[in-house]
């Protein structure tokens, strides 16, 4: 399940689960629809486009991520309605200076070294958000 999502993302595809009962898109997919709880789902490819709804420049990181600071974590609302968490492809300084909320982005996957507590022991994939006009 979660590995399929990240494998697809590394292959250039953002996937979600479309509910055949209520049309809701759940992304990343989970075992039931995020809106109605239905199990009647099909995996679909999403546009990979959306807009920033919130973000934070992170200066103090957990063990295993300390070498990556500062980085900008963001929530993006996809055009299909789901919200996903990833990293904004801008430096912390710019993120703190400008108001990036509402900016259009495109999603792509980037691989980072895994760490001892991450559920995937081979790799850690992060959804990255690239600002687009």
């Amino acid at each position, binding site marked *: 399940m*979660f590995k399929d999502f990240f494998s697809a993302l590394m292959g250039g595809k953002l996937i979600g689960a479309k509910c055949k009962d209520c049309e809701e898109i*759940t992304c*990343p997919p*989970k075992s039931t629809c*995020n809106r109605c709880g239905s199990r009647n789902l099909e995996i679909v490819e999403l546009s990979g486009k959306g807009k920033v*709804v*919130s*973000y*934070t*420049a*992170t*200066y*103090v*990181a*957990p*063990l*295993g*991520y*300390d070498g*990556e*600071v500062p*980085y900008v*974590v963001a*929530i993006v609302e996809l055009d299909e309605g789901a*919200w*996903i*968490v*990833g*990293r904004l492809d801008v430096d*912390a300084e710019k*993120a*703190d200076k400008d*108001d990036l*909320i509402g900016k259009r982005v495109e999603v792509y996957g980037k691989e*980072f070294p895994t760490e001892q*507590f*991450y*559920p*995937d022991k081979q790799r*850690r*994939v*992060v*959804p990255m958000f690239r600002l687009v006009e």
Partner: protein
Amino acid sequence: MERDVAVLGVGQTKFGSHPDKTLPELFAEAFFEAFDSSNIELRDIEAIYFGNFVGEITDGAANLGGFIADEIGLRGIPAYRFEGACASSSVAFRDAYLAVKHGIYDCVLVGGAEKLYSAGTPIGTRALATALDSAYEVNSGLTFPGVFALIARLYAKTYDIPLEKLREKIAHVSVKNHKYGAMNPKAQFYNKFGDLKVEDVLNSRMICSPLTLFDCCPMTDGASAVIIATADFAKDRIDEPIYVRGAGQASAGSLFRQKWDVVKALPRKRSAEMAYREARMTPKDIDVAFVHDCFTIAEVIATEAMGFFEYGKGADAVEEGLTWADGEIPVNPDGGLIGKGHPVGATGTAQIYSAVKLLRGELDFVKIDAETAITDTLGGDFGTLVNVILSVHRR
């Protein structure tokens, strides 16, 4: 048959740094204070409900129920360990309360212990992040300050408050809670930061923008314990039982799956409403609140979701002094998590400790006349929510 439930003795260690003690040793200290003020025999205690969040990571310690029981001389009785992130001991408290209420036990011990200060910031930050979505939030390096930083920006957008203005408003939460924390002898910051200024909060080190170091609660070692029993059992043994009038609990999934609901903390609204309904009370009946101020913005949204202020008005309320000790609804007059400290698994029953002490007129560093109090503990990014209503009145 349902029985009324009351709190007997309560105990809390000094919050801060305890590298020289194991989790059971630390808990024993809180337990002895609670036991010694309960006027009961050890054999009266029928079960232990113990909260701990990340003993595996900080101390290499799990299966803590039995070790706790053995440490305090109660070997043999059922001993449970509860985990609901920062709400661990509040979840334990609610289950203990339900067991006594519904006749499973007459007298039980509840509490919690945690050692995050001793773990150090990098391990502590990683340990806390285990309360987030492990696959889809932590992979980006999201942390707990990060979660509330995201929520602060969502709050500013939702209520159309310029971010810099919001930072100033919520800084008052830190100023207020450090003021009371500095007066609380059991607080991590006792005698420290009592005259913190809004500018100090704004200008301290950025942790996750827009939240600075003083917007955050600290990493803390500490333990707390409370003994609860049927009201009839309690009134035969102590002069001032404090009655448990209602308890609510609710849950939610990952932050991003809750979408805009996070700004309104809907699981908390649900949990608080469950507690109010059971107590047959409304927010107007509450005299004092001990809420989950893990970050300044967290206290603001808590006071809204619990019904003390309209949505979007919580930040104004603290700035106007409405949540100070002399305000219309005092919030965290013991220093809260920000001023008192946040030993995660011990935090819920430490809130109960302060509430009970205050209702008995024993919280002598702050003057508030109160008959009814509510506690509010949040685990994760709204994954686990618990509210408890306590009163000097049985009904």
